């Protein structure tokens, strides 16, 4: 395993979603994640981290459509969205002193930091 993925093993990783708490287990299994998955259906923490909604044009851009096409090719079964698809995500590194070390706030779902981008901030 390369150093960059090894760095991910040395941090706590949690996935925040805007699903209801009762949906988390099925959603986590669907995505095949091993990390804790958290419910923020009122998007209180999303807002605290400055994550708003994108426009329809920003969210459903060609890059997003290519992203979902790649997932389909890999065998992912996509489900009809039951939540607000305009909600934007983000990635944040919090240091051991509780301070925000890095913030990635993409403007569309296909605009995500690479593993290398994230690993640059991890010990």
């Amino acid at each position, binding site marked *: 395993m390369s150093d960059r993925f090894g760095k991910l093993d040395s941090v*706590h*990783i949690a996935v925040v979603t805007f699903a209801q708490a009762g949906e988390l287990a099925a959603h986590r299994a669907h995505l095949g994640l091993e990390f804790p998955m958290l419910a923020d259906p009122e998007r209180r923490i999303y807002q605290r981290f400055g994550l708003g909604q994108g426009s329809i044009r920003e969210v459903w851009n060609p890059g997003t459509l290519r992203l979902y096409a790649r997932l389909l090719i890999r065998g992912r079964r996509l489900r009809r969205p039951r939540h607000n698809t305009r909600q934007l995500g983000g990635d944040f*590194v919090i240091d051991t002193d509780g*301070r925000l070390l890095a913030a990635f706030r993409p403007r569309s779902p296909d605009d995500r930091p690479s593993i290398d981008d994230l690993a640059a901030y991890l010990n």
Partner: protein
Amino acid sequence: MDVGQAVDDFTLPDQDNGQWRLSDHRDRQVLLIFHRHLM
């Protein structure tokens, strides 16, 4: 919230009906991934 600022503690329910609290994870850095679409 800007880089360098202290992140206020928060607690959210997890997939096992537990409670995940940020301040319980100060022994290591934390990577929070905020999910986008739910498809």
